[in-house]
């Protein structure tokens, strides 16, 4: 039964292939006969532009124009997004306001920098070790690979909400309902911690501290970033010729030395790619804060007042949210451009370092 099904399938595939071949052939001849091959005599560059046109149009409308436009808007004063009118041009006024006068920008930069500085090295190291471990296990390999890849294909908000639930328990409920994290801590005799919960001003009970909330964001970001990195590293490791390890073994290198001196250098292009993309990704953190903390990015009445966990992108969106007011869009643009410059700076540094450290 199985066999005949297989046979039938392979035959059907073959027939389908023949069918499509025949008809693509006919379509080509049709065009040739009707002299519809109008591009035949075009020069190469014109053809190239023609083929790229659909992509270029979309990119132009949704990527290039907004980039240049926001750059432009960041130099306007009193810009009204509905009428497009503005009072005056200013070179650095909006930037000055964002950096020096506006509240919360510095906190947003600190929050973002913390997330990048901690999660990027941590995810890379952890995923590298998991990838090495996965590469060396034989039984249940597919199962583990699937398990580790699951976060990648699951919605960020959904996972974030699950995380928020795992770390739940606020100032009012801390004695009664405990999230998974607090329950586990309870087994070791640790008192429940208010991870994310807001305080209760009326009863004077304080909520989460900055670091408890931040650590949940960090743990979430690290965990969420693992999946893709593991897959990339794993494919890199599996592409390394086994003979290098045999040679290293004969040369007396220990397993950890082989990892340091052979595996890591040989997958350094992948590590480098992951580093660059995850630094950029880290600077653009937004969704995870929304999902874990709340759409305001603030924990009210925390351990020391309102706790601000907004990232730079969060900050930009805050201004966009107020875009009805004249001038706010310019502040949003200025903040976005500052973020762009920061990312550009780090990326250039990485590319420079990469030239010396990456073995292609």
């Amino acid at each position, binding site marked *: 039964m199985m066999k005949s099904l297989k046979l039938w399938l392979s035959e059907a595939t073959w027939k389908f292939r023949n069918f499509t071949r025949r008809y693509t052939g006919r379509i080509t001849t049709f065009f040739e006969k009707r002299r519809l091959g109008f591009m035949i005599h075009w020069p190469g560059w014109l053809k190239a532009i023609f083929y790229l046109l659909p992509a270029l149009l979309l990119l132009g409308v949704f990527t290039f124009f907004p980039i240049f436009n926001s750059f432009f808007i960041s130099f306007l004063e009193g810009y009204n997004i509905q009428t497009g009118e503005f009072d005056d041009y200013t070179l650095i006024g909006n930037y000055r306001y964002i950096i020096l006068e506006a509240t919360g920008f510095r906190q947003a930069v600190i929050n973002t920098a913390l997330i990048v500085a901690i999660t990027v090295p941590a995810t890379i190291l952890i995923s590298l070790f998991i990838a090495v471990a996965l590469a060396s296990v034989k039984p249940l390999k597919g199962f583990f690979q699937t398990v580790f890849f699951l976060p990648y294909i699951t919605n960020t908000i959904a996972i974030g909400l699950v995380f928020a639930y795992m770390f739940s328990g606020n100032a009012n409920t801390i004695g009664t309902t405990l999230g998974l994290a607090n329950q586990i801590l309870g087994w070791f005799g640790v008192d429940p911690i208010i991870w994310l919960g807001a305080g209760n001003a009326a009863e004077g009970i304080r909520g989460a501290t900055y670091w408890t909330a931040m650590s949940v964001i960090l743990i979430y970001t690290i965990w969420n970033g693992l999946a893709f990195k593991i897959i990339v590293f794993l494919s890199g490791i599996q592409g390394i010729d086994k003979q290098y390890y045999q*040679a*290293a073994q*004969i*040369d*007396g290198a220990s397993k950890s030395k082989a990892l340091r*001196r*052979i595996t890591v250098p*040989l997958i350094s292009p992948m590590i480098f790619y992951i580093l660059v993309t995850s630094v950029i990704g880290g600077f653009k953190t937004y969704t995870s804060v929304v999902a874990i903390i709340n759409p305001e990015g603030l924990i009210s009445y925390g351990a020391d007042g309102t706790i601000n966990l907004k990232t730079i992108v969060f900050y930009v969106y805050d201004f966009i949210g107020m875009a009805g007011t004249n001038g706010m869009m310019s502040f949003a643009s200025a903040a976005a451009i500052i973020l762009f410059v920061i990312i550009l700076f780090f990326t250039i540094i990485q590319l420079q370092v990469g030239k010396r450290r990456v*073995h292609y």
Partner: protein
Amino acid sequence: MEIRLEGLTKIFTDKNGKETVAVDDLSITIPSGKLIGLLGPSGCGKSTTLFMIAGLHKPSGGKIFFGDDDVTRLAPEKRGIGLVFQNYALYPHMTVRQNIMFPLENINIKREEALELVKEMAKLVGIEDQLDKKPAQLSGGQQQRVAIARALVKKPRVLLLDEPLSNLDARLRLQTREEIKRIQRETGITTIFVTHDQEEAMSISDQMVVLDFGVEQQMDAPQDMYNKPKNLFVAKFLGNPPINVLEGKVKDGNIIVGKDTVIGKTKAKDGSYTIGIRPEDFKADENGIKVDTIDVEHIGRDTMIRFMMGETQVRALVDSDSVEGKEEIALSVKTHKVHLFDKENGQVVL
């Protein structure tokens, strides 16, 4: 360092539980300080044997001795071996210097001393001016030398070479095999090298071991093995052009091929035999057998004559002068060079 293999056996089991005997009860003794060629067709177990000596494969049975030490259960890095892989396995991200130095990083040695050793090895193999290049910038022959230097730098007791010349072009191969021989002479290290090329093995080894289906066929000095093959397999495997194999019989001390062509005398008992005659063991002889030539090729000094002997096509390689300009060629066989093999088991008779 004398290497002794005692009943060495390797059985691979595939997914379906099917067993393949790669090396079957191999017992040989490799004398100290010699260059030994492990020779055989593809899949005969020669590389497996080498990897078992290296410690990368675990034997299914039998023992390996280095001198008096039983190393069968020893990890590769503790055996004191140097191994050159078929594709060299040079670390692509390290320079030549780092490559050669890598084995030294794992033992207790001062950096200056290590650098000195690296220089010494580089000089031995003739790559001292390439030390700062990456392997990809070197030619195949140079990479090969780097691999040998890396294998030798730790002063191993045994040097193992897995098909060391198969990735080189014909001319480089010739050069490199002389180089390997020189390095082996200079260091006096016991060397085992694996090859499927009989000419290569014959030209550089002190002793050869021929394997087929994991079973040792013969171990001898190259020329002895060529002249006195123990069985039909060895006779067929050595020599280019290959040996002529004919069906024939012995009657009253005469070796008879085909219907009634007597090609020589022997002391073997009467009966049917498989007869092996090397092409160069024919000679032009006016009193010999007149042959119907199919083709005559003059290749410089030698002439290759193809003709029918009984039912079989036979090649003869004779001196060009002796057949030049002759219309009819008559050949005889150097009687004492005819090999008689048992028809059943292929073992040599006499």
